[in-house]
């Protein structure tokens, strides 16, 4: 492939990843990297750098919408960003010292876990503010979000365990160049028992900040190639924008099943690639 065909193809693929990602609720990063590596034969480190930039772009857009609606909880977001940014710096430093094959295997495993996390049945276990973890009360992390029947107050449990899981989410984000939204959501809705709506909105804010903590290290190492970052981030950004508007009309449940199955295959391919086995 020659230019500009190559960049246009990359942009088109990124656009599709952006649309699907926003419909399914997975960020662009986790899809775009395997796509670039398997589909375009790009070195995984450059793919991760480009994906991370696209994560920052879409997170800014999505987080803005939630912020306006008053759903996201800035206090929780900023507080947990302490854990995710430190984790991201650790993860990114580890990534720059790691063999691309090993990265590919870890990436595949993280993909598998992400699929399992996204496919599981979710049960909301919201708390009232009074039942909150004392630390949450001291930090005033509890809040309320708008619902049909007026503002609904919620409590926050397990602040320290949640903080620890967030650190892990940050490490994965830096290590693999992903937003690790799926892992952040687990920390917030399963460990800290924050309502789904608030979790999703707040994690969007956090994803961009977390990604920014590792992207500087990628930049220093020269993993951000402008000629690759440009088509990927523009494609994903446009795709996410379109996806958000298709959300009301698209057959989301069906897409989810198809897409998650496809991601499973990709995960296996990434692992096989890391092990030096060629499939298909």
């Amino acid at each position, binding site marked *: *492939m*020659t*230019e*500009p065909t*190559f*960049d246009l193809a990359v942009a088109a693929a990124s656009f599709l990843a952006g649309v699907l990602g926003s419909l399914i609720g997975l960020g662009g990063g986790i899809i775009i990297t395997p796509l670039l590596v398997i589909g375009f034969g*790009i*070195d995984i480190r*450059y793919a991760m750098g480009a994906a991370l*930039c696209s994560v*920052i*772009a879409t*997170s*800014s*857009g999505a*987080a*803005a*919408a939630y*912020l*306006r609606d*008053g759903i996201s909880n*800035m*206090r929780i977001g*900023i*507080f947990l*960003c*302490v854990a995710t*940014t*430190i984790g*991201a*710096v650790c993860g*990114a430093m580890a990534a720059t010292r790691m063999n691309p094959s090993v990265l590919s295997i870890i990436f595949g495993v993280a993909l598998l876990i992400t699929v399992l996390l996204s496919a599981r049945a979710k049960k909301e276990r919201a708390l009232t503010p009074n039942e909150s973890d004392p630390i949450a009360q001291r*930090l005033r992390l509890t809040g309320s979000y708008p619902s049909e029947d007026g503002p609904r107050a919620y409590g926050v449990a397990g602040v320290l365990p949640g903080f620890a899981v967030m650190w892990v989410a940050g490490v994965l984000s830096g290590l693999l160049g992903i937003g690790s939204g799926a892992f952040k959501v687990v920390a917030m809705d399963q460990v800290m028992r924050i309502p789904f709506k608030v979790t999703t909105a707040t994690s969007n*804010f956090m994803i*961009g*900040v977390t*990604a*920014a*903590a*590792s*992207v*500087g*290290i990628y*930049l*220093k*190492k*020269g*993993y*951000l*190639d*402008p*000629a*690759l*970052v*440009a*088509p990927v*981030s*523009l494609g994903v*950004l446009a795709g996410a924008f379109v996806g958000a508007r298709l959300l009301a009309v698209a057959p989301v449940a069906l897409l989810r099943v198809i897409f998650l199955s496809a991601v499973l295959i990709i995960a296996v391919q990434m692992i096989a690639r890391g092990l030096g086995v060629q499939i298909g």
Partner: protein
Amino acid sequence: MKDFSTWLARVMVTGTLVAAGVIAIGLVWFLAAHFGESPGDHLFSGEPKYFTDPVGMLHRALEWNEVGHRRGLIMIGIVLLLAGPPVRVALAGIGYFFEKDRLFAAISAFVFLVLVFSFFW
């Protein structure tokens, strides 16, 4: 706080769109120069030193006559994009400071410092 959120949301969206616009212009300009070339010629050789920190990058991108200035324009857009989250955290911190919430102003400042550290270590 509600007004502040709305304002912050607007800053975020505008910043992202401006960054995307600069990247798009840079990309078109870049591709015009590399028309018909194989992407391998400019991809994956590792980035030159001057593209590996934001300040050096801006310097280079603003030297209009140098080779590589087309990529430099894309890089300016990327830096604008990457500046989004640190700016957001800084604004949140300033917001807390004026609400006299010292603890959260300090937490925001810490997150901001981690971000700055990651860009300039």
